[in-house]
């Protein structure tokens, strides 16, 4: 007969309830944390599975895209120091003007402008020459295969002598150190 008023059963009842309470107290927060961890892991796993399924697609497009990006980056300056790059840019610009028969009135470095991921290397210039050589000037600048942009340019025309005066900024570009480091990883 299991029904008995034997004190050992009451003792067992107390022990079993204490066992349950302590287990419940010990595991409830741990179970909650584990459930949260499990759901996060599942989400992460699903994301990885999704990435894995798209693996082939990214592998397919990667070489062509990388080629474009590498080519684009070659059009930026990549010297050890900014001064070296500015010096190189100035000599390129000077050569281009001279080759295009433009006479340099003045040429100097501007202040480097720091953007979020890149720097602008400006060369301030003032030249004069025949407008017929403008196309040649642009072609000469293009031949360096560097991304150069004219900024704040003004052209004054002397009609009688058929000479134009050009002054403004030619800007080259360079990745900043943060972007460079990330790309080498």
């Amino acid at each position, binding site marked *: 007969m299991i029904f008995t008023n034997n004190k050992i059963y009451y003792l067992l009842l107390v022990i079993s309830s204490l066992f349950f309470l302590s287990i419940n107290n010990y595991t409830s927060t741990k179970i909650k944390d584990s459930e949260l961890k499990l759901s996060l892991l599942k989400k992460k796993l699903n994301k990885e599975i999704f990435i894995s399924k798209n693996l082939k697609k990214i592998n397919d497009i990667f070489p062509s895209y990388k080629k474009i990006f590498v080519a684009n980056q070659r059009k930026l300056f990549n010297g050890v120091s900014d001064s070296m790059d500015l010096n190189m840019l100035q000599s390129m610009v000077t050569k281009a003007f001279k080759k295009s028969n433009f006479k340099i009135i003045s040429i100097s470095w501007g202040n480097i402008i720091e953007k979020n991921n890149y720097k602008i290397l400006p060369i301030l210039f003032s030249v004069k020459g025949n407008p017929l050589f403008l196309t040649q000037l642009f072609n000469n600048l293009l031949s360096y295969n560097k991304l150069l942009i004219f900024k704040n340019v003004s*052209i004054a025309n002397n009609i009688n002598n058929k000479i134009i005066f050009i002054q403004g900024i030619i800007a080259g570009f360079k990745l900043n150190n943060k972007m460079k480091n990330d790309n080498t990883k």
Partner: protein
Amino acid sequence: MIKKIKFLLLDKFCKILPLGSYYFMLVSKPKKVKLTRDLIYINFSNYSIFKNSEILYLEDGDRIYLWFIDRDFLIKNKFKQKIFIPEGLLISKALNDDNVIIVLKKDNDLFCIVKKSNIIQTEIKININEKDNYLSILKKKYKINNIKYYDNLNTIFFHIKIKDFIKDLKGLILNQVDIKQQIYTISDIIIVPLIILFIGLGIDKILYYSYINKKINIISKELNIIEHKNKSIKSKYNYLEKENFFWKNFKKEELSSPSFFLTLNSVFLALKNSNAQLRFFSKNSNLVNIIVSGTSTSKLIKNLLSLNIVKEVSVLNNSIQNNKEIVNIKVILK
């Protein structure tokens, strides 16, 4: 099976007092008297054959059944139950015979229950050797000739209708039964299931916790494998995303307006078509300022507006020098 369960349940609360363990008496009930246990004790306890006795009673019309029980007998047996049903009462209710002398043989004892006009007249234990004498006395006394014999009736399996006893319950409940004992009786029923429940719930928690941790381990391993596989693709993806973001941003900031070369080429073409002479040209982002002479302003504006790169043209200033019209024009590029 059902009978057994019913018996087990009934047995927890009701005790059938065996014949011979009590002393029966039938008395008349005074009219308009409400019976209470105290009243029964005061009036009838002195009729008991026992030194210390408990009394069970039952009202039946204008009669009262009294059963005297030896208190020592109750203490000795430590009955857990609170309700007591005398076996004689049970038999007389279970057997529907009336005007009968019921003779019961239980082991080596012989008991007689006399039932007349549906009232139990007496319950007595008789000597087996003098059975006939006793029976003839009973026959004469109660004027009953019908005698029925029963041998070892198993009364615990009698079909008991609880409703038959409900109205008489107060007389069949003994107050002096230990309340603590009754609490034990009730708690005994639930104590073992409670122990099992607590242990079961505790084990369930442990098993669930271990199950979740196992699952976490499995998924972590799976994740590590797939992450390792995806490592190269992720770095490729990050590279593409980063470069794409950079060049998009670069284009937006540095290449948003038409290039100097394209602008100059286009403006020169418009000036040539308008027979105008350029005196001054400046470009700052998407704003172009030109000063021209020797042409019709409206024609020049028309030609400038026809260029794909031009969004808006406006005349800032208009003057005449040496019979030539000099116009200052502002051009906003797309």
